[in-house]
């Protein structure tokens, strides 16, 4: 086991280190949602929405559910 002495660094030094590595990128804030079918009791779609841009990302969709079958077939 190696005991590594610490080196206390400043904010500027830390930022330089983080830039040298793959560090410090901004993440994204999301809210999450679902659509449910009362008849089958199943969740038929899961999605998230980027809070900053409003972009919706579908995480799961039950293409066998009537909701999507209808839309796929153009019944609406």
């Amino acid at each position, binding site marked *: *086991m190696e005991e590594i002495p610490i080196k206390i660094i400043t904010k500027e030094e*830390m930022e330089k280190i983080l830039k040298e*590595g793959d560090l*410090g990128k901004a*993440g994204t804030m999301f809210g999450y*949602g679902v*659509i449910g079918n*009362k008849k089958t009791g199943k969740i038929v779609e899961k999605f*998230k929405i980027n*809070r900053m841009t409003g972009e919706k990302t579908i995480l799961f969709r039950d293409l066998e559910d009537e909701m999507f079958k209808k839309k796929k077939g153009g019944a609406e």
Partner: protein
Amino acid sequence: MSYMYHKVCQGIDQDGGSNNIMTWWKTNFNMPVPEIWNGNWVEGRGPFTYNGLGTSFNLSGFYPGWELVAFFCGWHWDGPLYGTAYMYSQWRDENNNLMFTCANGNSISLNLDSGYWQEYMYGCNQGVAGWEVDVVGNYRVRSWSTGTGAMGQQDTIITFSNVPSTSQLPTSTKGYIWVEGNNLCFVNANRWKHIMIGNQESYVDTAKKGYIWIDSGTGYTLKWIGNDGYRYRCKWNIKQFASTWSNGPTGPTFAGTSKKGYIWIDDEFGWTHLGYIASDGYKYLTGSGNYPYQAPY
């Protein structure tokens, strides 16, 4: 029918998913949050089981710079309903002034036939700080929606008692780190003194009191020698990972093994924890709060 639900809790378990746990109660500000959303979603509840769900919280033993609770707001719509809804949720202070905006008019499309329902949930946490919870009182969470299926304002009163002082130390003290008694102390980026109480290990030597280092063994923990000459180990550390909750790095962060031993007080993503580079070259986090990835204690 449309309705909203408010859940204010100390932490959550992902229900039926990967058993990911996230706790806010007594943890450092803005710790990264694992994937928690992909659980079994239940109408009127969302995808979680809630730990420490309540409307009244006793902050005895708290320090400024620790998180308290998270507010999850759910919006529910039943079909048939077609259009766009706009959602709002807030934390409000003891004087009913806006303290923090969570959802702020975020839009959602509704294309629900009869027999279908839709829910959306957004969460935001609160901690002890001069700009968040800083005095005893009745705070509140508030939500509403406009547009299709509009829902009127709904408030839930949240009481905080035994709130600690949030006064800050002088700027010049930021970044100080020292051993006091057998504890590791430091002044974080928000200028609060934080005390890390370690797990005692074996006796070393009182002549070495105050030594601080990072262990290169399994776990890459931060260690120090207390005034009693014993070696102490930080109670927890976590390798940086991408948070699904708020801004932060997008994954594990590699600075390079040449940077091992570097340590700093974070003033980027939480302002209350320590960051350091271990001998594997990766960034780790530790702090005075509790470990965030287990049930509240």
